[in-house]
C-alpha cells in the first residue's frame, strides 16, 4: 500500500495516511487520519479553507463545481482528486417529517460553514431518487424527465441503487473529505472548527459507501495488487484514469447551464445518473497495442491520423471526436472496430453542437477491485439513456460482423456494469428532503 510520495525515512507520509484512510473509511481509517492530523507535523499542513461569512453567496446549483476546481493549462476541468459517495436510506415508509428536514438542513448548513465551496475545501451535493419521491402521495411534476434506474444495454444485469438519497463529497484534501463525512455521520462532533449540532445519520442510515480518486498519477500509484489491472502495472504515470487516456476535455463536456433544469419547482437542479463499472484491463493492455487502444477509446480515425500521443494531453481541450462521427460506419467496415467516444458522441450533441452531458467520472479501488464511478449530469435523464444506447453500438454490429456485441465495439469488452442509480439534484434551497411539488417545509 506504499504510495510513491512516501517520506524518505521509511515511514508513511501524512499524505499517504490520509489517502489510504479515504479508501479504508470508517472509524479505523479516520482514526489513523486524525492521528496524522493531530500529530503536529506542522510544516506543509495548510489549513482547510472555511465557508463564507454569508452563506447566501454560495451557488444555488449544488452541482456548480466547474468554476470552483482546478483547470489544466488547456482549460480542462480537473475534478477533485478524492471523492466519496454515500447512499442513504430513510427508515420506514411514507414522507419525512418537518423535524427530519430541519435536521438535514442544519447538518448541511454546518458543512457550508465549515468548508469553502472549492476543491481546496469541499464540494458536495445531496440528490434524491425517484423512489424517494414515491413516499409522497403527489407525483413529481410531469415535465420533469426522471425515473427509476433501468437496464441500459442488452448485455448488462446491474443492481439498481434505489436508496432514497445520494451524498457526493469531493475534495483535493483527503483530510477535509474524511472529517466532513465523519461529522455528517455523527462520528465526530466538529469539523474544521465548526460544531455539528446535527448529523445526516440522525435522519438517514448509510446503506453503502463508495470511494474513489482521479488525477494524473493516482491510478498508476494505486494499480499495484488491484484486481482488474495487469500485474505488470501498465497504467501510465501521467494518466488520470486506469485506461491510460485523459477524458472530459473541455469542448466535449456540457456547460453547467446546459444540464440545468430550466422550469418548474426544481429549476436550478439537474438529473444525475451514477453507474459503477468494474474494469478488466488484462486484454485492454495485454492483447491490444497502443494504436488499437486509440481506435477503441476514440476512433479508428484517431489512430490512422496519429491524433493521440501518450495519454492524449496533446489533444489540448478537445478530443476531435466530432470529426469522426459522420463516417463511423465506413470506419467500422474498414478497420473492424469502432471507438467508444465516437459512438457516444453520436447522441451527445444538440443541433448547434452543444454537448448534452456533463460527465464527472472517477476511479475506484474499493474492495481491491478496479472500477469506475460514473456520475453524469444532464437536464433530462433520457438524454443519458440515449447516449448510453449510442455507446452500446448495437446498430454497428449490423454494419459488419467484425464489430460484435461487446468485442471490437469501443471499450465494452473491458467494462462490466455493476450498479446504476438515477437521482434528482435539487437546487440548494430544496436540498433537505424536498417534496415532489418543490417545497421543503420545516
Amino acid at each position: 500500500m506504499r504510495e510513491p510520495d512516501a517520506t524518505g525515512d521509511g515511514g508513511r507520509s501524512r499524505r499517504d495516511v490520509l489517502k489510504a484512510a479515504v479508501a479504508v473509511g470508517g472509524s479505523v481509517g479516520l482514526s489513523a487520519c486524525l492521528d496524522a492530523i493531530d500529530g503536529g507535523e506542522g510544516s506543509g499542513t495548510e489549513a482547510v479553507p472555511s465557508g463564507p461569512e454569508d452563506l447566501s453567496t454560495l451557488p444555488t446549483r449544488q452541482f456548480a463545481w466547474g468554476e470552483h476546481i482546478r483547470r489544466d493549462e488547456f482549460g480542462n476541468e480537473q475534478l477533485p482528486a478524492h471523492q466519496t459517495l454515500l447512499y442513504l436510506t430513510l427508515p420506514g415508509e411514507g414522507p419525512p417529517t418537518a423535524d427530519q428536514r430541519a435536521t438535514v438542513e442544519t447538518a448541511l448548513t454546518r458543512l457550508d460553514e465549515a468548508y469553502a465551496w472549492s476543491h481546496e475545501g469541499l464540494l458536495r451535493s445531496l440528490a434524491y431518487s425517484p423512489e424517494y419521491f414515491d413516499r409522497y402521495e403527489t407525483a413529481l411534476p410531469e415535465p420533469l424527465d426522471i425515473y427509476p434506474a433501468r437496464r441500459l444495454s442488452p448485455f448488462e444485469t446491474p443492481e439498481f441503487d434505489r436508496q432514497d438519497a445520494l451524498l457526493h463529497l469531493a475534495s483535493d484534501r483527503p483530510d477535509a473529505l474524511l472529517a466532513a463525512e465523519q461529522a455528517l455521520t455523527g462520528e465526530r462532533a466538529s469539523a474544521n472548527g465548526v460544531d455539528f449540532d446535527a448529523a445526516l445519520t440522525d435522519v438517514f442510515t448509510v446503506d453503502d459507501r463508495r470511494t474513489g480518486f482521479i488525477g494524473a498519477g493516482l491510478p498508476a500509484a494505486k494499480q499495484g495488487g488491484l484486481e482488474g489491472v495487469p500485474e505488470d502495472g501498465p497504467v501510465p504515470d501521467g494518466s488520470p484514469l486506469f485506461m491510460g487516456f485523459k477524458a472530459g476535455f473541455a469542448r466535449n463536456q456540457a456547460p453547467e447551464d446546459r444540464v440545468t433544469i430550466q422550469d418548474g419547482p426544481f429549476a436550478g437542479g439537474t438529473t444525475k445518473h451514477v453507474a459503477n463499472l468494474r474494469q478488466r484491463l488484462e486484454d485492454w493492455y495485454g492483447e491490444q497495442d497502443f494504436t488499437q487502444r486509440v481506435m477503441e477509446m476514440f476512433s479508428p480515425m484517431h489512430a490512422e491520423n496519429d491524433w493521440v500521443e501518450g495519454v492524449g494531453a496533446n489533444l489540448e481541450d478537445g478530443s476531435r471526436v466530432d470529426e469522426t462521427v459522420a463516417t463511423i460506419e465506413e470506419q467500422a467496415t474498414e478497420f473492424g472496430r469502432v471507438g467508444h467516444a465516437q459512438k457516444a458522441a453520436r447522441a451527445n450533441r444538440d443541433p448547434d453542437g452543444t454537448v448534452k452531458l456533463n460527465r464527472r467520472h472517477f476511479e475506484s479501488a474499493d474492495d481491491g477491485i478496479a472500477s469506475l464511478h460514473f456520475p453524469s449530469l444532464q437536464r433530462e435523464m433520457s438524454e443519458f439513456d440515449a447516449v448510453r444506447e449510442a455507446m452500446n453500438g448495437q446498430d454497428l454490429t449490423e454494419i459488419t460482423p467484425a464489430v460484435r456485441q461487446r468485442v471490437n465495439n469501443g471499450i465494452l469488452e473491458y467494462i462490466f456494469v455493476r450498479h446504476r442509480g438515477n437521482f434528482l439534484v435539487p437546487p440548494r434551497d430544496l436540498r433537505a428532503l424536498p417534496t415532489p411539488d418543490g417545497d421543503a417545509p420545516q
Partner: protein
Amino acid sequence: MRRRAFLSGVGTAGALALAGCREGVETRSLSGPPVLSNRPDAVYFPTHVEGMAMTGRADAGEYAFALMYSYPHRFWTVTGGEVTRTPVEEADDVHLMATVWDPETGTVLPETGLDVEISKGGELVSQEVIYPMLSQPMGFHYGANFGLDGDGEYEVTVSVGGTNTRRTGSFDGRFGDPARATIGFEYSQSDRDGIAFEETPDRAGDPTAREPMEMGMPNSVLPPADELPGDPRGTTETGDAVLAVTTLAAPPAGVDAPDGGTYLAVSARTPYNRMVLPAMAVEATLTAEGTLCGGALPRTPDPDGGYHSGAAVDAVPAGADLELRVPTPPQVARHEGYETAFVGMPPTELTL
C-alpha cells in the same frame, strides 16, 4: 472404454469419459506441439487432440447454459480478415468453454455476447467477455483461457447478452434480454491433467476434421443441405466453407417483408461435420430471366433451418444464377485446424 474411442468422441458424456481417462496419463507440457509449418488454407486435422470435462449446466431466463473446460491452449482470433494467434500464457490454467442454447428447440444460439465471472470463496478471480469460437469437436461455443487460484471450489457466473440480430420463426420476439446463471466448478490440477490428450503426428495436416464430440447437450450442427426446410436449391463452396441454399415460399415470421415474396436463405457450414459458421457478412446477387436483384443478407438465427443469412426476394425461378459474396468472413475465434479455413472467401456462384 477405450481411450481412443473417447478421443474421437464416440457417444459418451464428458464426465464419464473424464473418469475413464484419468488413470495413467502422464504429465505433459501445456504448450502442445508446434503449429504446422505447411498448413493448408482449409480445414485440417490438428497436431493434437484433447478431451474436455463437463463442469455443469444451468438454466436462466430463456436460455440453457453448459460449462466445460480443458487444458489451456492456443487459439486464433479473427477481426475482419485478420487472424491473430493468442498463445497460452504462463498463468493460464484452463480453457473454459460455454455453450448457450434454446431449451425449447435445442438450438445453439451463436449471436449472443457472453461473459464469465469467476470467484472463489467470495473473492473475484477473473471476469472476461469471452470469444465466440469454433472447434472441431464442439463447433460453435464461447471460450477463453483463464488463470485460476489453485485447487478448490469456484463459482462461475455465465452472463449472456440479448441477441441483437433479427430472429425468425418461433425465435421472433425471443432472446432479446440478458440472463445469467452460476455454475459450481470444483477444480484441481490433477483432475485437469487427467483429461485426455494425445499428439496426432500421423494425421496432423490431413484435409479432414475431428468428429463432433458427444457431450450430452445440443451441438451446433446444421441440417444436411438437402434436408433444409422449403426447397433446397443446392450448395456451393468458398474458403472451404459449404454454403447451402434453400428457398421458402413465404418469408418466416420476423422478416420485415410486407409484400411477401420468396425467402432466400443461405446457411454456411463447415465441411465434414456441418458445424454452423456464424457472424459473417453475406451478399447475394440473383440473376433470373434478364432481371437482377441483390444486396446484403442479414444474419438470422432460426429454429427450423438453423442459423442463416437470408432475405425476401420477388421470386427465385429454376435456372436462376446466384452469386454469393462474403465481404467479412466468420468473426469467430478458431481452435487449431480451423484457423486457416473460412478466412479468404472469394465470391462463388451456383445455378439454382
